[in-house]
């Protein structure tokens, strides 16, 4: 199956740039077989392991498909394939003559390299696949190379990603140095390897976008073409999560790791969503929301680690399974939301919410699908986001109820999750309502058009996935159990430690009732006569679209509470006098970490670099003095050594 996937993906890469149809077919077959391979593992196929005969870089390829890899493979297959379909409509050759072919090429490379990341069981090949995946991500983000801000976003991504990769260099090199081989596998029996996990943590956390290492994420996801954003947000950042889960499973982790990951995860969730709420750019909002969701996943993972350390199987399993399920869920609904945002962008040419509005009329499909995604991402029942958040909550509550020491991590985490959940709801009410409801704020919004069939189809599949996990969570338990068992074998799969079937039933009832009630009320309203009239504006005679509540205003209250953390910047001129003119109010939420922390540090480094530049001044005489200086310094070094 994987062979088919490999062949199909390679087949897609090679002729892909020239022939879109063949590329699409190959991509669909390839991603389909990736998905099928994963499903085969869930269906009970034994773990698959394979060593190649040939050596690559001096090492034999070692691939391993176990429950955990399969879990992420499934997501990769689904989103990768749907993204390819979506791209047909979203980034066609006639509109993007120069970049569409490149996009197809790198898409194939990215899917393939992510697949290898998930399968590789050799440090060297893991790194190769990892960096290839990072680079293809960079080229996908900057498909449209003409725009400066896109290039800047791409560079930031590349820089951050490389910083993470260098941590991984150190990690894998140290691991290989200590174990004597590049081979990876369970090595919990060697406690001396424990401290190395911090290196892996730093490296993977950058990719996953955990606070405060998320700096690259918003601009990269916002500026990438939307199908790429979906893949980046849905799958690529999950590679970081995969790395964290994988190596926390294989390595013996220091006791503090569980606490740290939980803490950082909770903080990430809260701050991420607070920043999301503050955004005016639709895709940036979604990007920050990805930060939030990675935080939620990290809370689950950290809880799982605490559980493993505690020896308590119950809540640890639940938390880890919740985290894993949230990986899927976020992949599904975030891809859906990015697709929908892309369809809005495609139709209107802008991502600024304050220029949109009332799109439901011209793009009903997108509006409905976005709403589903928004409900899912806010963690509302009966959709999938709720299921995984529920599992994580439940695990944390179990910790608290059991009064285990880990409760001191769990209680703040629950609180932060609750705050994050409420803020997410606010953020997505804002996003959905400002974009799709009310009256169009600008001409572009009024002249929008619905997206094409391939884009719509991809979104429908994702929405169906969201609903399916929400309604039948128990169906997915065996797969999650398998992944959990791969993480920690003593937690081998068993009955779910939570009443998933009951939850599914409740959700199903809820859906039915909601549909019935909605339809019923609509019918009864129609039966009693339905008149249309202008929106009631308290007697104001000529309401205009610009009078609508803006996104910024909607978010202002809650964002204000976080202003002291992020240092919101505000410029305003109040209207004065009886005939006020030229009043304005501009609020901007700075990228706090980037602008307040990284920026000054980078500035300092650049200053040092500028100073170093002065040393290369072109005067030969001084260059010769450098020579003498080098001689003296080395001599001193040797002399000092000899004195000792």
């Amino acid at each position, binding site marked *: 199956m994987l062979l088919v996937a490999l062949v199909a993906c390679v087949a897609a890469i090679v002729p892909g740039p020239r022939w879109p149809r063949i590329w699409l077919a190959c991509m669909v077959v390839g991603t389909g077989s990736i998905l099928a391979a994963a499903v085969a593992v869930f269906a009970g196929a034994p773990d698959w392991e394979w060593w190649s005969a040939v050596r690559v870089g001096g090492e034999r390829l070692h691939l391993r498909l176990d429950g955990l890899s399969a879990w992420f493979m499934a997501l990769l297959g689904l989103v990768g394939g749907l993204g390819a379909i979506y791209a047909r409509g979203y980034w066609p050759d006639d509109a993007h003559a120069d970049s569409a072919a490149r996009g197809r090429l790198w898409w194939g490379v990215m899917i393939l390299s992510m697949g290898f990341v998930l399968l590789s069981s050799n440090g060297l090949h893991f790194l190769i696949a990892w960096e290839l995946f990072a680079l293809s991500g960079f080229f996908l983000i900057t498909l449209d190379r003409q725009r400066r801000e896109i290039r800047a976003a791409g560079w930031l991504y590349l820089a951050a990603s490389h910083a993470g990769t260098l941590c991984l260099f150190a990690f894998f090199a140290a691991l290989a140095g200590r174990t004597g081989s590049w081979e990876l596998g369970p090595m919990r029996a060697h406690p001396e390897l424990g401290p190395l996990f911090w290196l892996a943590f730093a490296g993977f956390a950058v990719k996953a976008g955990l606070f405060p290492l998320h700096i690259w994420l918003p601009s990269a996801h916002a500026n990438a073409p939307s199908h790429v954003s979906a893949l980046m947000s849905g799958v690529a950042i999950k590679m970081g999560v995969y790395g964290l889960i994988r190596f926390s499973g294989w390595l013996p982790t220091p006791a503090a790791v569980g606490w740290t990951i939980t803490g950082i995860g909770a903080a990430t969730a809260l701050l991420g969503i607070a920043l999301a709420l503050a955004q005016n750019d639709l895709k940036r909002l979604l990007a920050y929301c990805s930060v939030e969701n990675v935080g939620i996943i990290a809370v689950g993972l950290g809880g799982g680690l605490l559980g493993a350390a505690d020896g308590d199987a119950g809540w640890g399993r639940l938390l880890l399974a919740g985290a894993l399920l949230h990986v899927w869920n976020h992949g599904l609904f975030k891809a859906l939301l990015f697709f929908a945002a892309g369809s809005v962008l495609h139709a209107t040419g802008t991502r600024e919410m304050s220029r949109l509005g009332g799109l439901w009329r011209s793009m009903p499909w997108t509006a409905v699908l976005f709403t589903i995604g928004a409900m899912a991402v806010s963690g509302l029942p009966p959709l999938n986001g709720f299921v995984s958040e529920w599992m994580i909550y439940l695990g944390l509550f179990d910790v608290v109820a059991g009064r285990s020491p880990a409760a001191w991590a769990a209680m703040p985490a629950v609180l932060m999750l609750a705050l994050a959940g409420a803020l997410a709801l606010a953020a997505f009410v804002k996003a959905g309502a400002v974009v799709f409801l009310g009256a169009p704020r600008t001409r572009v919004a009024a002249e929008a058009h619905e997206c094409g069939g391939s884009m719509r189809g991809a979104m429908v599949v994702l929405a169906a996935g969201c609903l399916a996990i929400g309604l039948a969570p128990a169906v997915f338990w065996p797969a999650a159990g398998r992944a959990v068992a791969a993480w920690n074998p003593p937690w081998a799969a068993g009955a779910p430690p939570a009443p998933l079937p009951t939850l599914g039933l409740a959700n199903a009832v809820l859906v039915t009732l909601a549909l019935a009630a909605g339809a019923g009320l609509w019918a009864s309203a129609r039966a009693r006569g339905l008149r249309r009239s202008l929106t009631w504006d308290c007697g104001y005679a000529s309401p205009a679209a610009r009078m609508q509540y803006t996104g910024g205003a909607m978010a202002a209250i809650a964002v204000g509470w976080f202003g002291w953390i992020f240092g919101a910047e505000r410029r305003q001129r109040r209207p004065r006098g009886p005939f006020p003119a030229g009043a304005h109010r501009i609020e901007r939420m700075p990228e706090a970490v980037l602008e307040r922390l990284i920026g000054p540090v980078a500035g300092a480094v650049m200053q040092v670099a500028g100073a170093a*530049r*002065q040393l*290369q*001044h*072109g*005067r*030969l*005489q001084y260059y*010769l*003095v450098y020579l*003498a200086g080098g001689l003296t310094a080395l001599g001193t070094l040797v002399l000092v050594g000899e004195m000792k």
Partner: protein
Amino acid sequence: MNSTLNLLIGLAMGLNLLALGSSRLPSVIRAMAVQGVVLGMLPVVITREFHWPVALVALVTMGVKGFGIPALLRRAMRAANIEREIEPFIGFVPSLLLGAIGTIAAVAVAQRLPLLPEHAGTLLVPGALATIFTGFVLLVGRVKAISQVCGYLIMENGIYLFGMLLLHSTPLLVESGILLDLTVGVFVIGIIVDRIQRAFDSLDTRKLTVLRE
């Protein structure tokens, strides 16, 4: 024997100071040339008896260092029409002081270096160190290309002087190879000096700061 040797080396050290203190290019060149001749005589003095290969090398050294290279430099100097070094990086008095301090330091350092008894009594090591230092000061402290070349050559003279320690063990082939390289090197430098003179219409190396960050 040692007294002759020390006398010659002392002479070379004196020439160092002369080169440092002189603002006129011809006298710097002359000091360098005389120093070359003096040093060229050393092998013969050290070996004490007459070996014709040693004598040949000595003769070639003297010829190249005392006459060939100085002639080349004088030609370049005339072509560029400069006689004096004006506004050096390191002034003449400071250069002299530096040179004096360097010479004293060289003697002091040489005292502390572990030397074989037959070398401990000679000025070979301090002389070599002082000459190298002088060459370096000229290299760094002068702005006219020709002065810098002189500095470079004086530095090479110092190293040559140091090489006298190994006179008995260095194969002749290696020695002549080194000599050949030096000669070619100076010729190449001469050519470049000539090109710089043509390209920049000056031999002031302060003008050579186009290439920088």
